[in-house]
């Protein structure tokens, strides 16, 4: 960390009491471990109190939005994984829904339910990483190991479905890339049956832990008006008592058929955000259970031959299927001109894809609203006037991913 002391010379001359350095500018990041990636915070300190803060982003900007414009809609899915690398399936889902709305196709209910399950497992995955790293930041080492034990099992489920642990590209426009693998019900059920007891384990470690409470209660307050005005979404907003969740307010992919609660708190501090996310994990487990019990039979993708890839078997036996496969892979499918803004509730908040189509097989413009970008904008409001030691807790409670922020 680089430090720079600013001493006002004239002040020292006139007033001997002011010999003590007044303000200090401190660079936190971009390599600071608790900034989870490459966030740089410029802080101005008066003793231990932060008087001014400015987040500096862009270190992970990779021009994904530009790259969308030269890839076909079919290829674009792979980019969506890499935006928010802790919640790839939420981004896959949002992109797929946007393209499907442009194409105006309906996908089978079986695929919709499978998507819900995958999106909720992704939420668990992301919240587990958040909880583990947030706890490590504050000094509770062991929680991290417990969280990653469960996360490993989720990644294995993803691997079983798509062949990939993280960059899944499993949810595609038109449905899923492949059928759900044989035996997925037993595998997911085995995991989800024990998962709530695992959440109890984390709670045993933290919820009544005096150090945890001391570090998190009453820390990181920001008023609801500021939150709405600054564009904060997701669990942070819900921990302030605003019951906004896109899964309830603007249901997509059959979410309206599931029974779950949107957990809210009113304390609006780091501790409340922690409790909110833990309760969200329990609710996600409930949703996954409902999928296993009630998933309707059907196909994994819509029957739109010029958009969804044909089965492998058909390609070997039917001329038509082979031609469609060739066309989709080489030149892609044409999407009618128009524009949509599709929103999905990702673990971090509102993910939005704004796709403009000009009638060709490549998006004319694909804008991604990453929830981390919107949330990070409020960092100064969150930490100005607080102690520097609380910065770690405050920004940890935002749960941002810089890949999602910088794109």
């Amino acid at each position, binding site marked *: 960390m680089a430090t720079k002391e600013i001493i006002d010379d004239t002040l020292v001359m006139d007033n001997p009491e002011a010999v003590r350095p007044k303000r200090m500018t401190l660079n936190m990041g971009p390599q600071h471990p608790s900034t989870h990636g490459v966030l740089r915070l410029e802080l101005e300190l008066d003793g231990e109190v932060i008087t001014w803060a400015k987040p500096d982003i862009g270190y992970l900007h990779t021009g994904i939005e530009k790259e969308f414009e030269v890839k076909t809609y079919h290829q674009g899915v792979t980019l969506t994984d890499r935006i928010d690398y802790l919640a790839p399936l939420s981004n896959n889902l949002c992109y797929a829904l946007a393209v499907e*709305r442009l194409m*105006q196709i309906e996908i089978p209910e079986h695929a919709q339910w499978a998507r819900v399950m995958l999106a909720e497992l992704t939420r668990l995955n992301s919240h587990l990483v958040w909880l583990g790293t947030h706890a490590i930041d504050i000094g509770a080492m062991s929680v991290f190991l417990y969280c990653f034990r469960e996360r490993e099992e989720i990644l294995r489920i993803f691997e079983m479905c798509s062949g990939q642990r993280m960059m899944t590209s499993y949810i595609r426009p038109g449905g899923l890339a492949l059928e759900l693998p044989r035996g997925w019900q037993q595998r997911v059920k085995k995991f989800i049956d024990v998962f709530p007891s695992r959440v109890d384990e984390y709670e045993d470690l933290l919820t009544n832990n005096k150090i945890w409470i001391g570090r998190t209660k009453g820390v990181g307050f920001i008023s609801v008006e500021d939150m709405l005005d600054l564009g904060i979404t997701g669990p942070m907003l819900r921990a302030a008592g605003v019951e906004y969740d896109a899964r309830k307010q603007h249901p997509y992919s059959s979410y309206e058929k599931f029974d779950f609660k949107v957990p809210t708190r009113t304390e609006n501090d780091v501790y409340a955000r922690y409790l909110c996310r833990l309760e969200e994990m329990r609710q996600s487990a409930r949703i996954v259970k409902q999928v296993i019990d009630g998933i309707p039979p059907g196909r994994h993708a819509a029957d739109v031959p010029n958009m969804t890839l044909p089965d492998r078997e058909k390609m070997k036996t039917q001329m038509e299927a082979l031609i469609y496969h060739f066309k989709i892979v080489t030149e892609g499918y044409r999407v009618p001109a128009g*524009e949509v803004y599709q929103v999905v509730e990702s673990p971090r908040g509102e993910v939005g894809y704004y796709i403009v189509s000009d009638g060709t097989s490549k998006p004319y413009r694909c804008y991604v609203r990453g929830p981390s*970008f919107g949330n990070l904008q409020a960092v100064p409001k969150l930490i100005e006037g607080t102690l520097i030691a609380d910065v770690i807790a405050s920004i940890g409670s935002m749960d941002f991913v810089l890949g999602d922020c910088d794109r």
Partner: protein
Amino acid sequence: MISMPSEEIRSHPDADALLAANPEYLADVKFDRGELTLTVPAEHIVAVGRLLKLQQEYVRLSTVTGVDWYPAEPRFEVVYHLLSLSRNVRLRVKAKLPGSNPEIDSLTGVWRSANWYERETFDLFGIRFRNHPDLTRIMLPEDWEGHPLRKDYPVTGTRV
């Protein structure tokens, strides 16, 4: 100017509210795939933003971004996505800007969240926002040349 039959516009309360306040606030109305798009003359954007926030309860500005229609004129579109929590509706507002010296008033005075989104749009499209408190590049380095999301900016290649 307006491409929609007037009785249909009246059925959308937001479009109706804008017309009632000032008939010049609305250049075009489109309803497509369940989403309402209002196109607003660029010079009225702040007045429209304030009206939509205070009167139509759009408390949240979700995003600001741009679209480049090069080589067509007017070349740029600035696109705003709004959300009303109380009414549970979304709205898209657009303003069109010319290719030479694209400038529009900043909405940071209406929604503070516009700050970073406008900086991003400035950075990647080169659209200037008047009265913005800190209009600097946000994604790219300060000494970067050009605006990558413009259509005449190459996708690949090396700098010479």
